[in-house]
C-alpha cells in the first residue's frame, strides 16, 4: 500500500503490459505528435543524409542511395517524455551499424549530435547508437513515415525517451565530448533513460 494516495483514484484501464511501461508513463494506442514548431516539408530530390565530424571521410547519401542500403525490420516500444508509451511499433529502416560500415569513425569519438531539417538537434552517446540499438526509420507500420512523425526519415533510438529519436533527420556529427542539443539546452535530460525517469536535466 502506498504511504500517500489520492482517495478514490484508481487505474481506469487494465493492463497486462505494466512491466513494459516505465515509471510515470502510460500506454497509448495513438501515435501522438510532439514538435517545437511547424512540420518541415522536405522534397526527396533535395534530401541527403550525412555522417560528419570525427570520421576519416565524411559520407553523404541521396534519397535513392540511402534507400538502396540494406534495410531491416524493427519492433520496439517507444516512450515519449510527455508520458505516453506505445508498445510494439513496427519500423523499417537502416541500422546505424550499417551506416557506420561506410565511414571510419575516429577512436576519439564518444558522442553524436543528430541534426535535422528545421535545425533540430539532439545529443546521444555513440555507444547508444551502435550494435543495432538504433536505426534510421523510413517506414512505420508498413507505410512511408509521414512528415508529422518525422518523415521522410527519422532517427529511432527506442531505449531512450523519444525526443532523442530526431525527426526529419539530416545527419550525424561525431564528437569527442557530450554537447547539449535543442531540448537538452532547454532543460531536458542529457541522456533520457525512461527507466530511470531522466526527463529533465535535474534528473540526470
Amino acid at each position, binding site marked *: *500500500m*502506498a504511504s*500517500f*494516495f*489520492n*482517495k*478514490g*483514484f*484508481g*487505474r*481506469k*484501464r487494465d493492463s497486462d503490459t505494466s512491466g513494459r511501461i516505465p*515509471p*510515470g*508513463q*502510460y500506454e*497509448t494506442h*495513438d*501515435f*501522438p*505528435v*510532439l*514538435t*517545437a*514548431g*511547424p*512540420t*518541415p516539408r522536405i522534397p526527396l530530390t533535395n534530401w541527403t543524409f550525412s555522417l560528419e565530424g570525427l570520421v576519416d571521410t565524411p559520407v553523404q547519401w541521396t534519397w535513392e542511395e540511402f534507400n538502396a542500403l540494406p534495410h531491416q525490420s524493427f519492433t520496439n516500444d517507444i516512450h515519449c517524455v*510527455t*508520458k*505516453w508509451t506505445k508498445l510494439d511499433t513496427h519500423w523499417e529502416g537502416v541500422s546505424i551499424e550499417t551506416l557506420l560500415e561506410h565511414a571510419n569513425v575516429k577512436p576519439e569519438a564518444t558522442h553524436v549530435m543528430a541534426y535535422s531539417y*528545421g*535545425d533540430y538537434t539532439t545529443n546521444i552517446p555513440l555507444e547508444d547508437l551502435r550494435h543495432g540499438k538504433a536505426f534510421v526509420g523510413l517506414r512505420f507500420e508498413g507505410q512511408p513515415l509521414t512528415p*508529422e512523425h518525422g518523415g521522410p526519415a527519422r532517427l529511432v533510438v527506442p531505449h531512450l525517451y523519444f525526443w532523442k529519436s530526431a525527426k526529419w533527420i539530416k545527419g550525424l556529427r561525431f564528437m569527442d565530448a557530450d554537447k547539449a542539443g535543442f*531540448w537538452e539546452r*532547454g*532543460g531536458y535530460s542529457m541522456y533520457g533513460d525512461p527507466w530511470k525517469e531522466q526527463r*529533465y*536535466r*535535474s*534528473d540526470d
Partner: protein
Amino acid sequence: MNKIQWLMAEVTAIVQETPRVKTLTLRLPEWIPHLPGQHYDLRLTAEDGYQAERSYSIASPPEKTGEIDLTIEFIADGEVSSYLFDGIGIGDPLEVRGPIGGYFVWKDTMANDPLLLVAGGSGIVPLMAMLRHRANIKATNPTVLLFSVRTDEDVIYWNELKTLACQDSQFSLLITFTRRPPSDWTGYQGRIDGPMLSEVLSRFSSPPLSYVCGPTPLVEQVANTLADVGLPPTSIRTERFGPTGT
C-alpha cells in the same frame, strides 16, 4: 542543479469555468516563480500504489505568489482529468512538480514584439498566463488572441478576456465557434483555416511572434499554415496537449 522535487500541494479553491472545465488553485509549500507558458507535472497515486502522471499548464501569472492555478478540461474516459474534475475538493492534497518547460514560454524581453496567440479549447491555459502577465507588466505590444471553441458554453475565461480587450486597445480578442456560435454572433465561425489566419495576420504591421496551443490536429494545421503564409518557422512556437486521432 537541484532535482525538481515532488511537492504536496493543497487545493485551496475550485472555480467552474465552463460546464467541462474547472480551475483548481493549489497552495505550494515551496513556490517557485514561473515563466508564462510553463507547466507542472501532476501525479495521482491509487491506494494499491498505481500512479498516473500528466502535465498541466500554469494559468496564473507569476505575480500570483504562493499558489498556482491549473485549469483542467474534463475528458469523459480520462484517467486523470476526470478524477481532478469529479474527485477533488477543497483541502485535498495533490502531488505536483515544476515549473517545467523552457521553450513554450513568453519572456519579458519579448514584451515589445507583436504577439499572436492561437488557442484551441483548453490550449488557452498557458496563453492566459501570458496575457495576464502581459497586462500586469503593462506591455503595449500589439497582441491578438485567436481562440477556437466549440460553442458559446465553452469559452474559458470569457469575461476576463472581454475585460482585458476593453481595457487594452493593443489587445484584440477574436473567437471562432466551430459548432454553435451565440445567436447574435457576427465574428468568426468554423475551424481556423488559411484565409482566417491571413486576415488575422493582416492586423499586424510587422510579423508577430506566435504561440499555438491546443489539440494536436489544430496545432499542426495552424503552425503549418502560419509557416506557409511566410512567418519564419523559428518564430512559431507550439504546444500540443494531445490526443491524435490516429
